[in-house]
């Protein structure tokens, strides 16, 4: 006690925090072990279906609802370990003292959000119980699952309470250390004042402002707090909810956020994400990733940046069978990042390359987002898939060229060049049989029609686990480390998704995209100018919306406009998807970037990742320009179809 200067209360808080982390860890173990069990069960189901034609009836709908509980059970560890995405460009000038207070403010905001979510999830579960809601096929009662989700979110609120007290105590006790109080004040005080003003205007005068101004204000109300290190998910949630509550009232807003979040927790498209994270985690634990990179190093190590290019190649190969950017970024990211770092690649290059490479998952057919575009525009899925091939090749080549240019100007960003003797190459080839089996079975299984791309998440995770187990790599700490990483990364992504849900809902309410497009239509501009303006709108929407929502609310009226200008809808689809995918990697809301942030770990700042992405963003812009300048890149192949 003597000499530390800490009063007793913080000591008590230390104990409380330790206890809450221990609790969160236990919950996470249950979550991830449950996830693993579901993966193995899915593999059994696929086997039964393929060999005996007797799948387990209703397993998919049970999986959806169980995954909602499992994902919620991952949240407490994210909360307890304060695993949020913050933009920390200004951390240094802001200084520790202001920083401590800002953390406490952020903590209070998270606490408010989790408390409200817990209460409303409870109301949702209560409604389910009152009307005896059941799942469609096996008539599983749904209310107990949503009560479990409610309880877990409530645990989050309690744990966040502890976190907040701790942050508050730290802020009270933070010494004035350093001379940065004044510079800090120059950033913090105006940012706080601007935020307060923006919220006041939105809440008290927003009604009369019209959709464009209101959206602009809410956009600013989201951005400004990011500067002072308020977590991204929190800033989006509050800004979106403030804007939406002006338009439809607070109750309808919060109810919608809960409804949509419940949908996200149990949507088949998203629940595969933790499974892909788990696959990457176990593959790394099993040593499969290092095998793969030893081989890649043996083959491409003589070329500067060769490993980064090989990583783009793996993303492309993976993207050729799955339809999702996120799955690609999660899988390849978990495997490639540690290996590239170990071989001397800079964090920026390594993370930028995987985040951008991940978008190849959607750019290379098959692709979920292309299916949605085709459905929305009544064009042929097959034609879009074919049209996407050359642009996808172009994207991969441009990413490769980006790496080549990057390491030319910054040779230190890539590991040392090394010519590997033939003998070692052969050894590396033989040693990588495990990788071949794992990826071969996932890729081959989808290709041969044994399972769907959605099921591939479970198959990959199950296989990777079995591999690690058989190789004896899960002893001691290793298993728990994988579990902790999977749960924390899942939490990181979902805490962001709550914010995305709120902001997307608000933008949908303003009908901003419709207003902007209608405005462009009235200008009577040259077709090319219209197309470029539309692309800018897509890039703007990418700041805060996920690709699927963006397509749903824009394509139905943008598509006809572009077609009426004489452009080909297939070509426009390729351009639109390319633009929307850019949204996955550009700040501040880039899901791929956040996934990579989760995989890369706490010590890597999101700012570093976004900086690493910049060269690849440039490549994307070059690609967009080429696609617009030379539509034949997309249209030549489908033109050769009958």
């Amino acid at each position: 006690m003597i000499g530390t200067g800490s009063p007793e209360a913080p000591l008590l808080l230390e104990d409380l925090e330790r206890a809450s982390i221990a609790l969160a860890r236990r919950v996470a173990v249950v979550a991830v072990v449950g996830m693993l069990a579901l993966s193995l069960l899915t593999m059994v189901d696929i086997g039964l279906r393929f060999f005996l034609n007797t799948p387990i009836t209703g397993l998919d709908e049970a999986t959806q609802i169980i995954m909602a509980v499992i994902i919620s059970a991952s949240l407490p560890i994210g909360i307890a370990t304060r695993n949020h995405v913050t933009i920390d460009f200004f951390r240094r000038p802001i200084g520790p003292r202001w920083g401590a207070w800002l953390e406490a403010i952020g903590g209070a905001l998270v606490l408010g959000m989790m408390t409200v979510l817990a209460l409303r999830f409870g109301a949702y579960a209560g409604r389910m119980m009152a009307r005896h809601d059941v799942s469609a096929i096996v008539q599983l009662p749904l209310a107990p699952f949503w009560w479990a989700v409610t309880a877990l979110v409530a645990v989050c609120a309690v744990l966040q309470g502890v976190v907040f007290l701790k942050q508050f105590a730290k802020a009270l006790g933070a010494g004035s250390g350093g001379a940065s109080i004044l510079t800090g004040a120059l950033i913090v005080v105006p940012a706080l004042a601007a935020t307060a003003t923006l919220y006041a205007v939105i809440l008290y005068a927003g009604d009369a402002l019209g959709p464009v101004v209101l959206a602009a204000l809410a956009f600013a109300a989201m951005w400004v707090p990011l500067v002072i290190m308020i977590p991204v998910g929190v800033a989006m949630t509050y800004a979106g909810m403030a804007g939406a509550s002006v338009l439809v009232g607070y109750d309808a807003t919060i109810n919608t956020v809960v409804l949509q979040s419940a949908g996200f927790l149990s949507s088949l498209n998203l629940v595969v994400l933790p499974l892909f994270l788990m696959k990457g985690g176990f593959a790394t634990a099993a040593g499969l990733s290092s095998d793969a990179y030893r081989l890649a190093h043996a083959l491409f190590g003589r070329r500067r940046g060769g490993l980064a290019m090989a990583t783009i190649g793996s993303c492309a190969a993976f993207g050729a069978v799955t339809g999702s950017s996120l799955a690609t970024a999660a899988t390849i990211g978990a495997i490639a990042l540690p290996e590239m770092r170990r071989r001397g690649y800079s964090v920026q290059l390594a993370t930028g390359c995987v985040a951008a490479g991940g978008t190849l998952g959607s750019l290379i057919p098959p692709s979920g987002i292309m299916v949605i575009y085709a459905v929305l525009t009544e064009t042929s899925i097959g034609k879009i898939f074919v049209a996407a091939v050359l642009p996808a090749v172009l994207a991969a080549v441009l990413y490769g060229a980006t790496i080549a240019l990057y390491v030319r100007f910054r040779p230190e960003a890539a590991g040392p060049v090394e010519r590997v003797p033939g003998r070692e190459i052969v050894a590396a080839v033989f040693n990588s049989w495990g990788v071949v089996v794992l990826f071969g079975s996932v890729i081959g299984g989808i290709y041969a029609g044994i399972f769907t791309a959605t099921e591939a998440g479970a198959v990959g995770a199950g296989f990777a686990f079995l591999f690690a187990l058989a190789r004896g790599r899960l002893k001691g700490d290793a298993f728990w480390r994988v579990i902790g990483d999977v749960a924390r990364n899942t939490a990181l992504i979902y805490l962001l998704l709550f914010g995305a849900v709120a902001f997307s809902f608000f933008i949908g309410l303003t009908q901003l995209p419709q207003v902007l497009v209608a405005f462009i239509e009235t200008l009577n501009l040259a077709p090319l100018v219209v197309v470029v303006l539309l692309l800018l709108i897509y890039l703007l929407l990418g700041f805060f919306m996920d690709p699927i929502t963006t397509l749903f609310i824009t394509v139905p009226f943008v598509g006809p406009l572009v077609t009426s200008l004489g452009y080909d809808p297939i070509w426009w689809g390729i351009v639109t998807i390319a633009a929307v995918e850019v949204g996955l990697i550009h700040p501040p809301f880039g899901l791929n970037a956040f996934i990579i942030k989760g995989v890369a770990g706490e010590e890597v700042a999101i700012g570093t990742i976004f900086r690493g992405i910049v060269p690849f963003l440039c490549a994307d812009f070059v690609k967009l320009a080429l696609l617009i300048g030379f539509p034949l890149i997309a249209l030549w192949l489908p033109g050769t179809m009958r």
Partner: protein
Amino acid sequence: RAEPVQLKLATFGPPNSYFYVEVLIPWLEAVNRDSNGAVNIKYYGGGVLGNAGNMYDAVLTGAADIGWALPGTVPGKFVKTSVAELPFGYDSGEIGATALWRLFAKGVIASDFSDVKLFGLTAWPGADIQTKSKKVERLEDLKGLKIRAQGRWQTATVTAFGATPVYVPIDEVYQGLDRGVIDGVWGSLVLTREFRVDEIAHYFLEAPLNGGSGMLIMKRESYDKLPAAAKAAMEKNSGEAMSRALGKSNDGEVKRVEALLADLAKKGKIDAPYTLTPDEFARWRKAAEPVEEAWTKGVPDGAAILAAFRAEAASVKSGAGQ
């Protein structure tokens, strides 16, 4: 005079889907006009206020004032309305939708709608069987085929007919059929067109298998609070006529897809769509009986509801009550 009450009408599918354009948006415009400024309904498409899975809740919790929702997504509440999901229930969307509305109007299924004001019902055209490489002509042909099915009664029917039901998310149907995870799809031609099944499947068996329903609803308490002029305008444009129009809109889409398939068949890209022989049809109806029994056993007054639905469908088909 008072400001018009502002209401949001929400749908979840592609905002330009045929029946939104043909029925729902004209309904909204007619109500706005007939209310003489008492109400102003605005259209929110594309699922911004609620999606297929949660639209019913979106309406009950106030995210949307009026919503297009699927009773099949709330199976615990819409127990009786699920009669539409049984196989061989009705021959066309128009017949199904009109019959279903009459069941509601006569109070047979009204208890399902206790929390909402119902404006109109639709019935999706009964499922057809669309297969990639095996032509299904006899019941036995289904044996061992993996068929994409959704929901309890489709799944039960596929099983009763000897095929293996497999659930694949709707946006993976194209890829699943292409790669062979599934051999076929249990769904109406409306679905064929929306998800481009015609690009992969070769055989299209047209049969009135499992149908389903959709509804335009408003939370009851909110409806009760509306000004009289608004309610009158809504009543005037809703009910059996609207339901019939919704069903007809589905039939129109089926006709468009049939034309498309006929064209593909002429070019030799697919086999011409076909129907069951009368003998085979009788065998399939027989094979569906256990499914009907399971349904009537699980639903209060199930047998009476099913009988009433069949009778209404027959009566609509014969043109009674037009």
